[in-house]
């Protein structure tokens, strides 16, 4: 295998990105995934396993892993960490009750060694619901400003209307693309 082969392989790999989408159950992860993929979002039931979808976005191939968020499943999240370029953390902005849970789970993930260096996007989802918290409020509730180990952004959005989903994705892809590819 010479340099030319390495370069060829790298060109292909550089165009591939692995995104891991996590969050409490009912946050809207699967809905976001289906919305991206142009699928019907009316018949979604809680995810008991995991979904993988591959999408093309701005010349990148996004492999998105969506894992169920129910409490019993959370201990298995660790099985999906390897070579993750970005973590997409989905929050139900109307679910004030579980914000503390939400914060705890997120911060537990951020100390994971295998997620070190990954970009973090927080989707403050369900903005269409009356009484949902704003992105600013969620940011405070989740104590995002204490995060120094990851590039992060919080984006308000609604999976049902599709609002701002693309903004978030654009930022993620941009952030990943703008660091050099190390193939590790």
């Amino acid at each position, binding site marked *: 295998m010479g340099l030319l082969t390495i370069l060829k392989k790298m060109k292909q790999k550089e165009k591939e990105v692995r995104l891991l989408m996590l969050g409490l159950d009912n946050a809207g992860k699967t809905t976001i995934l289906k919305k991206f993929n142009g699928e019907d979002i009316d018949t979604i039931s809680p995810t008991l396993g995991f979904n993988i979808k591959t999408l093309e976005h701005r010349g990148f191939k996004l492999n998105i892993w969506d894992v169920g968020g129910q409490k019993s*499943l959370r201990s298995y999240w660790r099985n999906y960490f390897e070579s993750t370029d970005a973590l997409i953390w989905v929050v139900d902005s109307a679910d004030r009750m579980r914000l503390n849970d939400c914060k705890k789970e997120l911060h537990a993930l951020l100390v994971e*060694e295998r997620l070190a260096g990954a970009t973090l996007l927080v989707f403050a989802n369900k903005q269409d619901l009356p009484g949902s918290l704003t992105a600013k409020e969620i940011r405070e509730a989740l104590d995002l400003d204490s995060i120094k180990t990851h590039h992060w*952004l919080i984006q308000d959005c609604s999976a049902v209307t599709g609002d701002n989903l693309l903004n978030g994705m654009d930022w993620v892809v941009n952030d990943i693309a703008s660091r050099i590819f190390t193939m590790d």
Partner: protein
Amino acid sequence: MAANMTGDGKDDGADESKLQVHETFTELEEVKELIRGLENIYEDFIEMERSAERFRFIIDDYQEQPHLIDPYLEELMLMLLNIAKQPKAPRPLTRQAFSYLYLITKMRGFKQVVRLLPHEVSDMEPLLSLIESQNPTDYELWETRYMLLLWLSIVCMIPFDLKRLDSNLQQGDGSVKMRTMDRIMAIGKMYLSVNDKVRDAAAYLVSRFLTRLDVKQELLPSILDWMMKILKDADHQTVLGCNQLCGVLATSALLFKHGKREDLLQYAPIVLQVALEAKLELCDSCVVRKMMGKLIHRLGLTFLKSRVAAWRYQRGSRSLAANLGGGVVKSTEGGSSDVIQGPEEEDEDDDVPEEIEEVIEHLLVYLKDKETIVRWTAAKGIGRVTGRLPQELADDVVGSVLELFSSQETNGAWHGGCLALAELGRRGLLLPGRLKDVVPVIMKALAYDERRGNFSVGAHVRDAACYVCWAFARAYEPKEILPYVNQIASCLIIASVFDREVNVRRAAAAAFQENVGRQGTFPHGIDILTTVDYFAVGNRVRCFTELSVFIANFPEYTQAVIDHLAEVKLAHWDSAIRELSAQALHNLTPCSPDYMAATVLPKLLPLTSGLDLFQRHGAILAVAEILHALYPISQARKKSLVDLLDENSLEEVQSVSKKLQDAKMFKRHGGEYMRTAVCCLIEKCSLSKLPFHNKPVIELWQSVIDECLTHIEPEIQAAAVAAIPSFFSEYFTRPDGSVLQDKQESILSHYLQELKSSNEPTRQGHSLALGALPRAMLQGQLSRVMAGLIAVSEVTQKEEKMAEARRDAVKALSGICETVGVANDGKADSVLCSANVATVYSALLQAIKDYTLDSRGDIGAWVREASMQALHDVTSLIVRSDPQMLTPDICKRVFCSLVQQAVEKIDRTRSLAGHLFSKLIYHSPTVPHIPQEKEVKDVFPEVLAKGTNWSAVSDTYTMFSRLLALDEYTYNVLLGLVISVGGLTESVVKFSSASLLEYLKSLSGDRAALERFMGVYLAVCRDHHRDDRVSLPAMKALDHMLCWGVLDTLASDKSDSIPDQLVSHIRSEVTKCGNPQKIMAAADVYCGLLQFEGSPRSKCLTQLMILLCHKYPRVRKTTADKVYEALLTYDEVVPEEQVSDVMSVLSETSWDNLEIAEIREKRNSLCDMLGIKRPVLLKQS
């Protein structure tokens, strides 16, 4: 270690065309159809094979661009899986479906494919049962098992407690079913030691499975024990042992890769200890060693906390295209306080476990492994592990890697060392302070070339050195590279244009591009990379002769380029590289003439008599080329060349040949190189008018040239011949252009004498030499030289085989005509004129009839081709000065000869003839006296003549056979055509016959025209009576014509009709003929001629009856068969009432076995029945 001889060296730019490039996956529908079709054809073995072959072909075709299948991948996988997973489906069907799944997986990579396999909780149970029902040793179904295990690897990732699947373990009959977890583990263990690819899938499965939280807690310790036991006990000298080791090593490497570090840390020391104690670096299997390298590297990573490279956002974006295109992408839009840079400083005081030292030590051993893949793994491992070390220790690793670059180490160590430096470099682990040690080493590696006699090893080292340069570009700030930029840039550029191997040139070009793109500090980087790109460097000749100059025109690179060629490449082991380097130096001289004259030449001159053959050869060539390039520069400066050189140099140039001769270097090993090089030196010194007139060196040079002329190698002769014109002109003529007569006389008489040598190469060399003489040397002696050459060009019985000498004499004859030029009323001894033009043409037109055959085949074709070219060249020369010299007779013969060659049977000859013919009819100025010019041009309109591909059989025959209709050409076209029609090469016979048939059809109904045509045919036959080259194919051609039924309008009503003449001609051809081929061909023709009533028929019958008693049994038998067939066709030949008797005698007699007396009796009875006279036996004379 295999010699690294990649690249054929000659024209390596050609490989581009082989690359199949697709835009999309176009065969989607066909592939789906193949899949759907399986259910209908699975019982038909042959159809299944056909389907498989097609499927494989399509999929293989996308091996280079596998991502094109992505949009359809899921759909195709599911289609196949639905067929494959039915437990009750027939075996051939599921087997083929799995085999297709495997082919797709292999093409796209299993990691991509595995994601698409279904992974619901409900998939688990059926899948497990399916796997458990497999027979692990059924070699026909390994693809099935491979796919099933891969599938299981994704299904077992369900985030779901496996215990929940085990509710009903207690069976009705009281037995207890195994737990799901145990079943999966059992499958994994079993397949880990198999001998096929299923083992890879098993390793992947087990490693995945063991990282599950529940499994980890319950099974990991015991499985690790089990694996350690295998590591300890397996015997790596047996196949089974290697299989087991591979499986276990692969699994543990993957486990430590995928698993959570903190979980696995506790096991790492013991695994490392056991693995190292197995001493697998001594194992013969490179797969085992590679796996071992992987495991050590993963263990190393487990001991150390990961760190994120702090600089990764500073060094630009992922792909270079973005950098080059729109500038470096900003990491995030400013202003938003949402994005925060993580802390860059890690605490340095982490504990480094002592095991790390062992890990690094062993990786360094694998880094020198004799196999590339092992070195690769080790290099990646060193890169990754070092990435987690504190700075100080990391630098120690760099130091150890640098130790590999010593002259005592193998090329493998150099290669591994480069790979490691690249891996360290791209991770930013080579501190800028180390660059001063690393850069010189890499520059050495970039030129690494370990000569092994006539080849060398090192291309892989050079390639890896390019990788290092590429990696630097990505990891360092421009200011850190700055001190080394010129050095790195020069070396990369030099490698990208002057490396012998195309892949290294391309790698260097890629590394250069990366540096320009990310560093931006390379001098003239953008200019160079747009010209010296991936494609441009594919062509080596262009690299040396053009790109070198382009680069040297930038002052930063001039000297580096010149020095590299002069110091390194001129001594390269490949003579083609030395020659190209010398040419390159010629082209480079104008970039820096004074440097060349004052520095390079004086350095090269001592090498011209040095001990190293390659260097000597290269140096002489280069001296010659540089002098030649300096000459016009001195002229332009209105100086003599001598003024540019230092005094010493001139002396040394003059003494080169003498030194070689004194050291007997012309005779010793490699003398051929010395001869060609000195010939080149003679030529270039003469062209540069070096003031050596009347010096002893001239005599020496003359003798070198003369010796080369007798050499058996054509290249050496050619080198001498190339030197002749300039050498003789410069040193054997006076300033007024007149020749030194004593020299002229001695040379001519010597050369003319040598033309008569009995040694063919000597004749060839001296013919070519005479052909290359300058005009002055021929003045007053032309007739003598012509006569000498013409004598060589003639076929004589004794020297029949000297076709190459004849060819060269013909070339030379044409050459001297060109040299002396044309003057209608000039003197025959000085110029081509009316007095000698006929002589020249008659010699050439004689040569075009050279059909000599020997064991090498039609060697006369060389002469004929040379003659055609000469006819064209001389004719062209004459019409450009004085067309009147050409008589109608000469022109007719020239054109008719070309036409004849254009329809003969050798492709190359035909193509040349077609090409030259069309050039001459549309020559400018026009050639006079073209026979039937208007009609010819109707057949060959100008656009068509110029655009036709004359090597295509179909076009050539179709066009030229139309000339059969033109009286002037009929004879020659037919003469050529019968040879093709009656020949043996299938395509030639096919197309030439079709053309002939088409022409004959156009004559149908026109009896007079047909008779005229057959008259010409008979003339051809008579002119080549008993000349089997023509007469045999002519007979076969006649047989074809008779069979086609296009001759039946010929009348046989009067005596001496055409059919009568044909019969008597055939008879005369085969009387007393000993060639059975020809006799049987004659029998065919006789049979065909039976169609003509009257005397032709009865004569043929008589001849056939004679052949029935021929002395060769085979002739008798064949004749009987043929007559039998013919009588069936022409039923009026035999009286009605005799038919059945005649036929039974013909078919029931064993003509080849019986005694001759018996045969004669049978034959005579036939004669009686047919009503012809019994042949009377002539007394044998």
